[in-house]
Every structure is written in structure tokens, then in C-alpha cells.
């Protein structure tokens, strides 16, 4: 079987700290896979490596059956055609909401639809500094969803959103995935996000993938942890 996104024996160091120690991951076309693990385990790093924003110190990364990063090859992020929601949003301070989307796409109809779906229509002329945290996050998501791409990377996309908004945004993401036949990689701290969206969840530990589970299996483990009897 050929995979749409593969990471094979990928290593990444930041200074003296080795974050990824020979990580391997295969993602099928059209799959939504979650990345779960403690802070500093390398989740965002994996997304950055897939996007081409970081270069691996070893191993190989392929997208769409083409090697995009290895010892001899490196394809820049501009050429990988991925779309991404950043953990710290990465909004452009001088552009309004609408300008963010117009910068990414010329499709006015699509922009209008995305704005409506994410409840940003009335805020389309505002600058990022005039928005709340949740609104800014929605702009970051809207920007990612305006770019037609078959690989979507989401780095904690719901951290500022309330429950209702989360549901709304998740629906929008599912629509996007369906329309573009996208393969999605999502980082989150919430198990429920994985349940709602993901086909599988990869759990990171010690710089590698320790196991890959279905979201429900992960939920059961969580329940076991939370409802265990406290040690005396």
C-alpha cells in the first residue's frame, strides 16, 4: 500500500535536545490522523517537518509518493502545497480578516462561504488586534481552509474555542476534507477532538511513536487513568 504522507526514521535535534529519535509514521490518503503526547514531545515539530518549515537531521519524508526531505533532497514549504493552522496563529498584523483570505485565494465565493461557516462575516474588516483570541484562531483556520490543498496540518486549532464553536469548526474541517479529498494531521490535547475527527491517533513518547490507536481506545485509557483509585 502506498501512503500519502510518510515519515521514515526521522530524527530532529534542537541544539543538544533530541526531540525526535527515529520516528516513523505512515498516513493514508484521505485519512485524518491525530498526534497526541505530552508537551515537548515533538508534535508541532512533526507538523513543521511535514510542512517543510524544519529540516530533519536524519531520515526521510515523502508526500504524495515523492521524497520531499532526506539527506540529499529538500523541497521548500512553498513548493509542497500544504495548508496549515499554526499553534500561535501566525496572523499578519496589518491585514483584515478578509484580506487574509483574499491573499490566499481569488475565489470570492469560497471566501464568503468560509467566513460564514466560521461566523466571521461581521468581523471581516477587522484587524487581528481588534479580535478576541477565539476570533483570531478562527481566522487562522479560515485562512487554512481557503487554500485548496490535499494536505491539511492543524496545530491545536481549537485551544481558544468554546464547545459550540468547536463543533462548528470541526464540521467545517470535515467539509473541507471531503471537498478536497484531503489528508489531515491534527495535534490536540483533547481526546474528544480526536474522537470527533480522527481515524487514528498516534501517541508520542520519547521521541518516537509508541503506539497508534483508534480514538475510542485512547478514550478508554483516559477513563482508566482518571477514574483510578488514588494511592494512599
Amino acid at each position, binding site marked *: 500500500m502506498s501512503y500519502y504522507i510518510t515519515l521514515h526514521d526521522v530524527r530532529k535535534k534542537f541544539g543538544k535536545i533530541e526531540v525526535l529519535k527515529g520516528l516513523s509514521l505512515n498516513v493514508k490518503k484521505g485519512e485524518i490522523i491525530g498526534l497526541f503526547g505530552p508537551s515537548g514531545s515533538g508534535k508541532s515539530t512533526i507538523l*513543521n517537518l511535514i*510542512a*517543510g*518549515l524544519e529540516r530533519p537531521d536524519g531520515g526521510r519524508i515523502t508526500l504524495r509518493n515523492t521524497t520531499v526531505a532526506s539527506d540529499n533532497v529538500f523541497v*521548500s*514549504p*512553498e513548493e509542497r502545497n*500544504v*495548508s*496549515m493552522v*499554526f499553534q*500561535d*496563529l*501566525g*496572523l*499578519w*498584523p*496589518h*491585514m483584515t480578516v478578509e484580506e487574509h483570505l483574499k*491573499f*490566499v485565494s481569488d475565489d470570492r465565493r469560497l471566501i464568503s462561504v468560509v467566513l460564514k461557516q466560521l461566523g466571521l462575516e461581521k468581523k471581516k474588516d477587522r484587524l487581528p*488586534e481588534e479580535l478576541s483570541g477565539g476570533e483570531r484562531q478562527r481566522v487562522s483556520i479560515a*485562512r487554512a481552509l481557503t*487554500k485548496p490543498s490535499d494536505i491539511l496540518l492543524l496545530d491545536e486549532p481549537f485551544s481558544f474555542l468554546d464547545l459550540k464553536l468547536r463543533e462548528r469548526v470541526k464540521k467545517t474541517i470535515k467539509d473541507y476534507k471531503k471537498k478536497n479529498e484531503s489528508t489531515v494531521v491534527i495535534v490536540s490535547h483533547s481526546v474528544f477532538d480526536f474522537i470527533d475527527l480522527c481515524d487514528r491517533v498516534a501517541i508520542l513518547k520519547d521521541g518516537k511513536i509508541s503506539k497508534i490507536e483508534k480514538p475510542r481506545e485512547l478514550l478508554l485509557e483516559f477513563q482508566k487513568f482518571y477514574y483510578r483509585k488514588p494511592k494512599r
Partner: protein
Amino acid sequence: MESRTIKASLIILIALLLVLPLTYFFLQFIPQRIDYQVLIFLYEFVKFVYNKRILKVFAKTFFLGVSVSLFSLIVGFIPAYFLEFRSFRLKNFIRASLFIPFLIPPYLFVFSWLGFLGKRGLFSQIHFLNLSIDIYNPLALIFFLSLSFFPVSMLFISLGFRNITKKILNPIKIFNEKGFWKITLLLLKPYLLISFFVTLSLFFSEYIVPSYLRINTYQSEIFVQLATFYDVRKASFLTLPLVIFSLIVAILSFKVCKIKTEIPDKKFVPPHLIRREKVFFYSFTVIVLVLSLIIPLSVFLAESKLDVLNPLLETKGIFFTSVLFSTLISFSTTFLSNVILFYLRSSQKFVNFLLFFTLLMPTPVLGVVLTTFFSAIKLNGTVLPLIDGYVIKFLPFSLLFMMPEYGKVTKSLESSIRIFSRGSLISFFKIVLPIVKEGFFFSLITIFILCFGEASLAQLLLPPGLQTISLRMETLLHYGNYQAVASLSLSTVFIPLALYSLYALFKGVKR
């Protein structure tokens, strides 16, 4: 346009503009045969460089330069703080007034003071103003040049203060109000250091003012090698320590400018001045304005006999040439520095290092280098040598101004630009430039003023038949045609001021 194409074009441009002329020139110093001539060459070099007198002059000049830079920094820092962190009336007017001294070239600034202090008989006829102050000493040099250069420090440090947003201030208020300066100064470090270096570079470019004040400086020594001994080789030897110092400036600047900064906060409303701050700030501003602006402008007005129009009309062609060149150079240099900082950021260390080579290189030496090179390729007599000369002289300054501003282009911003880019040029114009636009305008204006007042490169590189206003003014000054000089000085101040007023009226300068 692919960013790879742009990067390649930039590297070729830098090679053509800078590397080629300098390499060609310095190759001429290498002895053609490896024989005893090499030993003589080395012996001469060592003997010359280790001349006690020269070393003494260098040390003295360096000390003077550091003093000027420090003093400018202090005088510029105080108004910068108040302009960015306090609200008060006529803020924009005060800001503009404090900038005007920079529009007056240093030699004209000193010329006005010499007139004021009775050295030309202007105020000596008013007996009570006949002050017998001896200004022909190093203290006077520090005083005059600091007053001349402080506006650059002031405006540049203001840019740094603007990056201190509520995001930074609010936690300070909560956790430790006394920690304000500790945190602020750290964030201001790139701006402070670069202000210091820019002023130091401006000092080392200045050889007319020290000679007016009868002070022998290192740059005068270089000038003498060309003007008296016509020894380009010795002049180049003497330039080497300055080139080495330029490279040190480059390394330190890069290290310091790695600090990431915030985008200015438009919603920030500074508090009003409290009583004791009012007393201090207003007194300080009045004193500085009197010394750096009122006195020179009064002398110009008096010496011009209020005839500003006629000298301007007589030199209108020359004025126009100067404005055209200065505009072209300020735009191209500022634009080029931004393109370099954005596209060559991964190869910053090497390429930008190279670009600082000419930061402290005296303009007469640079002029000779370029004349020699362009003569060899038969392109002297065109405007190309002058454009090249101005670009490579002022490009390091523009890079220094822009480097801290690029701290606003955080990794997150950069990442999102790369992911959503629809072409690197579009990203550059639509995203990057708007973020650094304050630094961009600052560089534009400052380079324009520096270029407008520059004479020695123009002297060596202008095609025959053209003249610049700075050359004309220097000539008039030395003929003793003080009235024309004073009138033209007023024009060079009031025309940009009028333009700025129009801009401020339409756009409104916030904060």
C-alpha cells in the same frame, strides 16, 4: 518570480556593485612578482601602520567618536522615551522640531555656530554677545557633532520603544513595576547599539568639521594622503583599521538583532506627563532646540538677509539634480537593503558581512576605488559610478536601520508567509514590507538627507557638466559667500519640513 531567482540576482548585483570594484582595486596593490619587492612592500606596510603618531591620532579619534556616539545616544534617548511613552500637547510638532537639526549638514551647523559666537563678526558687534569662548578644541567637536547627530538616535530609539507593547507592559505592571527599565533596555538593545554604531560611522565620515575646529583626526590623515601626497596606497592602508572595525560592527549587529520584537501596538495610549516630568522634559527640549535649531536657524536667517528665493532660483537646476539623485538613491538603497534582509536571511552572515565593508570607508578612498574601476571598464563619465558609490556607501546604513525592524518578522509570521505564499515577491510586498514600514520610511528619509549633504563622492564620481547642491554650498562657503550659503541652508531645511508637514496633515502621525 521564484525566490531562488531573486537570491541569485541579488548575489550577482552585490558582486557587481561591491565585490568587483573593491577586488580590482586591491589587486593592484599586490606586487606582480614574488621577489624582494614583496619584502619592501611588507616592510613599508608595517612601518607605516605602526607609526606612533598615526596610532596616537587613531586612538584620539576613536575616543572622540565614542564620546560623540554616547552623547548623541543620551541626548536622543530622553526625548525618544517621552515621545513614545507619554502623551502631551504638540507632540508631533516637538518630534518634527527635534528632527530638523539632522537636516542641517554638520559643517553648516558648525558654520552657523562660528557666526553666532562672533567668529565672523556677526554677533560680535552686539557687545554683550561677544562671548570669548574657545571652540577650537575636542570638547567643542563632541558638542557640535552630538547635537548634529542626536536626531538619528532619537528617531531610531523611538522605533525601538514602539515595539514595547501592552503585551510586555502589562505583566511588568502586575509582577514588578520597578523592573520596567530592566526589561525595556534589553528589548531596546538592538536599537541602542545600532544608534551608537551609526553615529560612530557618521563621525568617521566627517572630516570637514574637525578641520574647521582645527582638530587633526584619523580621517584627516587619510584625506591628506590623497590631497597632499596623492598616495592612494597609503590612504588604503590607513583605511584598513576602519574596514576591520566595520566588520566588527557587522558581527555585533547581527548578534544583537536576533532578538525578536513585537509589532507596534496601535491601541496603546500613553499616560500624560506628571508635573516633575513636565518640568524636566520641557526644559530639556527647549535647551536642545535652542542649541541645535534656534541658534543655527537664526544665524542663517540673519546671514541670508532674508533673501532665500534668489539663491535658490540661481541654483534651481543643481537643486533639482541633487533632489533627483538623493531620491533615487534613498529608494533604491532602502529597497535593496530590505530585499537583502528578507531573501538572503539564511546566508546573512556571509553576504551581509561583505556589505558592511564600506561602512566606515572614507568617501574619498571609495571614490578613488570606483573611479579606477569604472575607468578600467570604460564606464566613467556616466552616472553609474556615482549611483554605485552612493549605494555601496549608504547600503550599510540602511541595513543597520532595517535589521532590528526585521525582528518583527517572527518565526511564526515567517512560517505562515511560506505556507500561504503565492509568490515570494507578492509576500514580500504585501506582508513583509508593511510590517517593517516604519523602519522603511525612517531609512528612506535618513538616507535621502545623508545623500543630499554628501560632497566628496560626488566630487570624484559626478559626470562632467553636473553638480550637486552640497558641492555648490561647500564652494560658496569657502569663497566666503555666506549670504548664499545661509539662504540655501534655509531652503534645505524648509523644503523637507514643508513636505513633512503636508504628510503629517494628511496622514497624521500617531503616538
